[in-house]
């Protein structure tokens, strides 16, 4: 005999019915599919091999790492339940989750992590990510769910490197990772299971019922390859794709029709990167810091932001973005001040002696060429605005656009440039040793401007050894201040990340890290579901 709970006997029937119905309405529905539009196809789905965005988008759905970043951009456990940092940072002990199953039913254990680590440092595996893992001096499997990693010296960015996707040992131990068919048919521990891949057309994933966090609500994840931006935008207008990135122009001017307002939601979120103009610090003209500071005063960054990004971004004040805990709020960008620019240049010995409108010094005119890569409208426009402003204070800057691979191999790698406009897409960990340390100036390395500051070097080394975030933050605050003051780059802007998502998806909660962090909690009410099956 079914007993009605006594509390319900006291409530009037209509209220009970109402509560019951709203309870039903608020429950998330399973089903539907999300169609992502992408300009490029994935290359391989072996997670440690691919470095392109498309491949990482897919492997991010199929695999997990030991750690991941939560909505506040703090490291949290993924396959690792918890970890301990010992011996002043030399050792990290990971306690792995139990009851995690690979998508083929096999249990996940510490041996899978060991296998992934060994492949990462294997010289015959074509992985670009070995760098961080070569700093490990020993890797010990304590038991099926405990790992002890010891480093040669304390290395705090190492912790976030364990966000690397873990691969299944039982499926790959006998395979040649470079050639394995697994790259076209991956099996992971993540929320989505690989279903099919039609080259250059689409990749389809289905939700994993036994995912250790929870089964995702959206049943299918479809990745459509549409290489042309105009076509992608047209597909958006027929609801052929559910989500794609937008340019500032599209965001502001082309997506305010009644159709868009009804069918889509727009998102403007902070991005994790910046655009800059870098100087070749070995060039006579740019050796003097006063010259670089002068150029910084001579260019109005707000103007660039307004024209190039239509205001959808922020002025950059140094090597960190505002969302990062390493960002120093006290570093304020210098105001546009052409008068001060001229004064500083005069101090550095640059005057217009022959009255031709261009500054001279020791018989040399202040002329230089800035290079940038083909295909990036924003960088080209920024260059042109800078060119105009520099002309006003007597500097003749030419702009040269080069094809990407020529740009990298002939000019950047060989340091054959005077100035360059580029951008960095940053990792969440603020360690920028590879970009600003004086030892990273060999051909092919990333300190191609040739920055050399012993104090910054010391701070960069220190920042990598400290694990407590507060103490690390102090170090990076100092680095932020020093680098902005010295101006090895003219820091230009931090663009906003603009995207659009079909309005039928619920559960989106914008956070400092973006909106994708809780993707498994997104859902579509049954009545609005578009893709049945």
């Amino acid at each position, binding site marked *: 005999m079914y007993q009605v709970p006594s509390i319900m006997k006291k409530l009037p029937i209509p209220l009970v019915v109402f509560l019951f119905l709203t309870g039903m309405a608020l429950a998330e529905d399973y089903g539907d599919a999300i169609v992502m539009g992408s300009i490029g196809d994935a290359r391989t789905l072996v997670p440690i091999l691919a470095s392109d965005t498309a491949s990482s988008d897919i492997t991010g759905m199929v695999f997990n790492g030991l750690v991941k970043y939560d909505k506040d951009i703090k490291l949290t456990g993924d396959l690792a339940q918890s970890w301990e940092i010992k011996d002043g940072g030399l050792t990290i002990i990971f306690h792995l989750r139990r009851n995690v199953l690979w998508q083929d039913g096999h249990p996940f254990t510490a041996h899978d992590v060991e296998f992934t680590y060994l492949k990462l440092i294997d010289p015959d595996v074509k992985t*670009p990510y070995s760098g961080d893992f070569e700093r490990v001096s020993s890797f010990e499997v304590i038991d099926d769910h405990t790992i002890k990693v010891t480093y040669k010296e304390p290395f705090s960015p190492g912790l976030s490197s364990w966000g690397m996707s873990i691969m299944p040992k039982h499926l790959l131990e006998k395979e040649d990772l470079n050639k394995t068919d697994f790259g076209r048919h991956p099996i992971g521990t993540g929320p989505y299971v690989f279903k099919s891949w039609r080259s250059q057309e689409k990749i389809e994933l289905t939700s994993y019922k036994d995912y250790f966090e929870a089964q995702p609500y959206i049943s299918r994840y479809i990745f459509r390859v549409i290489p042309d931006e105009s076509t992608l935008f*047209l597909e958006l*207008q027929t609801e052929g794709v559910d989500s794609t990135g937008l340019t500032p122009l599209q965001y502001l001017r082309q997506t305010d029709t009644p159709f868009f307002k009804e069918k889509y939601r727009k998102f403007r979120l902070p991005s994790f990167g910046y655009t800059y103009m870098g100087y070749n610090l070995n060039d006579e003209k740019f050796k003097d810091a006063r010259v670089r500071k002068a150029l910084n005063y001579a260019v109005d960054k707000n103007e660039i932001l307004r024209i190039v990004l239509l205001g959808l971004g922020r002025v950059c004040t140094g090597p960190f973005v505002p969302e990062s805990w390493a960002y120093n709020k006290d570093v304020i960008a210098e105001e546009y001040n052409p008068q001060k620019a001229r004064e500083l240049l005069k101090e550095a010995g640059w005057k217009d002696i022959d009255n031709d409108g261009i500054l001279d010094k020791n018989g040399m005119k202040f002329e230089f060429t800035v290079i940038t890569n083909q295909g990036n409208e924003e960088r080209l426009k920024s260059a042109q605005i800078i060119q105009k402003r520099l002309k006003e204070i007597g500097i003749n800057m030419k702009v040269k656009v080069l094809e990407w691979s020529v740009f990298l191999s002939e000019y950047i790698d060989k340091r054959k440039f005077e100035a360059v406009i580029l951008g960095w897409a940053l990792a969440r960990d603020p360690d*920028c040793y590879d970009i600003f340390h004086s030892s990273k100036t060999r051909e092919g390395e990333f300190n191609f401007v040739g920055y050399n500051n012993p104090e910054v070097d010391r701070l960069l080394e220190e920042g990598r050894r400290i694990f407590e975030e507060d103490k690390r933050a102090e170090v990076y605050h100092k680095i932020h201040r020093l680098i902005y003051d010295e101006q090895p780059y003219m820091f230009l802007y931090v663009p906003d990340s603009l995207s659009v998502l079909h309005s039928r998806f619920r559960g989106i909660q914008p956070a400092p890290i973006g909106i994708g962090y809780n993707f498994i909690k997104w859902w579509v009410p049954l009545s609005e579901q578009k893709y049945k099956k």
Partner: protein
Amino acid sequence: MSVNFVGQINDTIGPADMVNYILRRLLGVIPMLIGITLISFFVIHLAPGKPTTIQQSLNPKVSLEVRERLEKLYGLDKPLHIQYLSWLSRLVRFDFGRSFSDDRPVLDKILERIPLTLTINILSLVLIFLVAIPIGIRSAVKPNGLFDKSATVLVFIFFALPSFWLALLLMNLFGVQLRWLPISGIKSLDFEYLGFWGKLADLTWHLILPLFVSCIGALAGLSRYMRQNMMEALRQPYIYTARAKGLPEHKVVYKHALRNALLPVVTILGLSIPGLLGGSVIFESLFALPGIGRLFYEAVMMRDYPLIMAELVIGTVLTLLGNLLADIGYACVDPRIRYKK
């Protein structure tokens, strides 16, 4: 291209001569292939940049040591002539190597794109012929008449229109405004669940716009050529004879004039064969068609040498074969060539 048959003592060229000729031409393909690939190989390597530069560069997680190690794995640190010879030695065993971008066998990557490219190109060719030839004939039968003048203007307008612009306009009109046709791609998302006829219909529906755009520009060339040939043919003495004999006009035009006017068209068919396996990267990118054009373009941009070389070999072989077929076809179709006099 001049045709040079060595015949026997008799007047006509017999089958034995044809076989002889074909064999000699086929053998001639080999030294040409080696020459072309040798030059291509070195020219490609003249372009600055290596596959490893593009793939991993400016990714702060990828250090210099890692890139050097990757270069060794790809064999890029060996001298050029060694790289060429090892490529050639694999080629004679029909091993085209593996793509640098994802290590898949190059042949797989090319073969999976061929059906689509071939289909579109063959259908395109058929459609162009089906439309351009009647236009040419009709124009020639009444030169400078109303049909001729309007057809000329129309085909030249189509010829002058930039195809990518036209494509976007039509995609907007038929895709977004009218919702009659899909915008891009070759299959719908639920393609796998359709029956056989459903799949055929889906493919056809997706191909309408791309085929239309690809054919429209080519109409001008062939229709003008056809018109010219027809007018030539209609001026011949045997046409007077035919008319004098009292033959009905449609027999004069179709049975006598057309047959002769079509001969040069055979040459065009033969010369179109290499183009069958080519694709336009702009066209394919616009319509999101996974064809050969995009594959080749991306291979060049990424310096994916095995893939580039494979496509060049295929292109070369097809061009040479196409020429051969055109010559043979012409000989078969034109009795005058078969007779030594």
